[in-house]
């Protein structure tokens, strides 16, 4: 019999620490699959954020660095610039990337650093217990917005893909989602393209993946998929925002 689907080679055997149904695991697996597909396990360097996915280095069987909260894009810049032969990516949550790390992601994108960013937007601070993120939906209750996010005082959610794609420097910027098989397949395509651009030394690549946090949303995993679809999708449209072929 032939195995047509199983845990990719580039992952360790460890069972993740993620909550049941948390889509971080799906994103991890796809990144590992791509590393397998491209056969670049021995020249890949990942950068872990601070966030639930800080332990991604436990699961990915490649060289890894753990960056300070929000600073993975700067950290990756340092490494990629001195070792351009490596395939470098950061894996970051929305608190990490869209809040404390805003300057670092924008400037890495603007310099056109030749690495890939996997951005997990789950509209919340997962690891620290469900505080409001810049990406939290209007009205969404979190531990620091107990009455729901008030756009008059906290503003509207930040759309990183839209913002980054205004930069003039060529880049690949795309948003996909992890809430259905179809969307996961699209996510995989986006990730593959992103790494491809890096392999071709073309440009900075940025893949935003809408993701769920059943625990801090307080919804079952399957219910979370639905919540994502109903609440996040309308505000965070999926699709390619920018490619290096633009202009």
């Amino acid at each position, binding site marked *: *019999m*032939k195995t*047509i689907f*199983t845990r990719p080679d580039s992952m360790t055997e460890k*069972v*993740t620490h993620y909550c*049941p*149904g948390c889509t971080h695991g*799906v994103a991890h697996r796809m990144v590992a699959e791509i590393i397998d597909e491209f056969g670049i396990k021995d020249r890949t360097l990942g950068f872990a954020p601070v966030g639930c996915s800080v332990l991604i280095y436990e699961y990915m069987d490649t060289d890894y660095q753990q960056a300070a909260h929000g600073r993975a894009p700067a950290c990756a810049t340092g490494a990629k610039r001195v070792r351009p032969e490596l395939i470098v990516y950061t894996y970051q949550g929305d608190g990490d990337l869209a809040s404390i790390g805003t300057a670092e992601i924008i400037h890495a994108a603007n310099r056109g650093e030749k690495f890939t960013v996997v951005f997990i937007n789950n509209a919340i601070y997962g690891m620290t217990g469900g505080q409001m993120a810049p990406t939290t939906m209007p009205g969404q209750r979190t531990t620091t917005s107990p009455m729901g996010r008030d756009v008059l005082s906290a503003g509207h959610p930040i759309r990183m893909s839209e913002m980054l794609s205004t930069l003039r420097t060529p880049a690949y910027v795309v948003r996909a989602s992890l809430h259905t098989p179809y969307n996961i397949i699209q996510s995989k395509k986006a990730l593959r393209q992103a790494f491809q651009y890096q392999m071709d030394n073309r440009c900075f690549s940025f893949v935003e993946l809408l993701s769920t946090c059943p625990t801090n949303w307080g919804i079952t995993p*399957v219910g979370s998929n639905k919540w994502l679809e109903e609440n996040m999708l309308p505000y965070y449209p999926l699709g390619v925002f920018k490619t290096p072929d633009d202009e």
Partner: protein
Amino acid sequence: MPSVKVDKDRCKGCEHCVNACPQGVLEMSRDINNKGYFYSFPKNPHKCIGCTMCAIVCPDMAITIKVHGTQYKYFSY
């Protein structure tokens, strides 16, 4: 015939796979696994068409799909 296997002790009982399977192959057990979760298992294995939907939604890499001979590729993934 495709074969779907769930690694019981990797499973965290999220039900994503059950929800994703177009064939109703999978179901949640009434037992708990060694982590204390109700796990998913192929209740109707013969119905499986090897589409891998269950596997691609599984965040825990608990599902392995095998096939005899060649398999129709439903999508490029």
